């Protein structure tokens, strides 16, 4: 009897200690996961207009000849080039955002170069829903050095967020930055050490 209790006790202690070890490992894993799911942000460059600056008034014309006012409404300005493969991978995301946010957001594609080539590109990629402008001055005013580059312009015609966008998450981080009223998600994470809740399906829907 005593021997049986002793054996049981030894086994129980081994199990309790093992379970404690598992608990430590699990909580550690949760911590690692927590860090890993922190949002990635668009790489904001310091060049060009700062967040909060008024968007310059430029005489812009879309490919189909319509006049375009950048500051007229909330706009996602996306700089691309037909020869940039990463830009193409972002296009489906842009189309989805355009569909979902049609009431509150306009998407303007911007580039420069030969209008014929861009018209063909727009047809190929079925970009007919978005305004497509060719303007060297636009890229220069925003000091776009690398593509794909995006600028989110708020309803008051100011820069709400900007950065080099290589993935869908980068695009969404621009809307997050606007919602959280910070210049970039990186800045937010540095400020708080807290991880913002990403509201992906309705990014920016509040405004």
């Amino acid at each position, binding site marked *: 009897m005593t021997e049986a209790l002793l054996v049981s006790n030894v086994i129980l*202690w081994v199990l309790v200690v093992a379970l404690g070890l598992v608990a430590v490992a699990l909580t550690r894993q949760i911590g690692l996961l927590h860090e890993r799911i922190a949002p990635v942000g668009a790489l904001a460059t310091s060049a060009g207009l700062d967040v909060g600056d008024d968007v310059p008034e430029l005489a812009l014309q879309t490919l189909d000849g319509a006049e375009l006012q950048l500051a007229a409404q909330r706009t996602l300005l996306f700089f691309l080039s037909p020869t940039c493969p990463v830009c193409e991978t972002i296009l489906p995301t842009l189309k989805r955002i355009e569909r979902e946010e049609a009431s509150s957001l306009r998407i303007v594609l911007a580039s420069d170069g030969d209008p014929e080539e861009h018209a063909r590109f727009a047809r190929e990629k079925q970009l007919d829903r978005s305004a497509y402008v060719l303007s060297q001055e636009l890229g220069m005013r925003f000091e776009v050095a690398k593509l794909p580059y995006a600028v989110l312009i708020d309803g008051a015609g100011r820069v709400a967020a900007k950065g080099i966008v290589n993935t869908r998450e980068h695009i969404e981080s621009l809307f997050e930055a606007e919602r959280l009223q910070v210049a970039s998600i990186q800045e937010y994470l540095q400020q708080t050490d807290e991880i913002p*809740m990403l509201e992906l399906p309705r990014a920016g829907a509040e405004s």
Partner: protein
Amino acid sequence: MDPAFSWILRGGLAALFAVAATHKLRDLETFGETLRAYQILGSGWVAPAGAALVLAELGVAIALVLSPDVRMGAAGAAVLLGLYSFGIGINLARGRRDIDCGCLGPSARSPLSGALLVRNGVLMFAAALAGLPTTSRALHPIDALTIGGGIVAAAFVFIAAQQLAALAPGLRGRRESA
């Protein structure tokens, strides 16, 4: 109080203070910065107070295990924990949650929170229990397993709880902004 239970408490607390002291000794500079960030001591007092705290932690750890009078080590542990809680409480009241609490060793930063006060409260309760007089039961060899297993299991639970508490501010941020 059964001596085996008392030994688990004393051994666990001694291990905690010994680990805390080694963390601080290994990186005295970071500990000094942490202490300065609490903004309780004048700048001239930070270095001597830091050294005194490290020595006190080591002394408490040794006293808990070796002192013939268990009350000494237990009282020292409770006083140190009380001091830390006081520092944390003051800074929480000042609204300075963002400073590093210095509780998890030099490698991990962790903000101040009410959870730390709860943690210290639990540890102070354990110290009070450890200071109670023990019954004079002769220790059996099997008690070695009970004490050893108890200390190790308690340490794991403590580490796990600590890691969960360190996650809490981030998780709260998610809920608030949702």
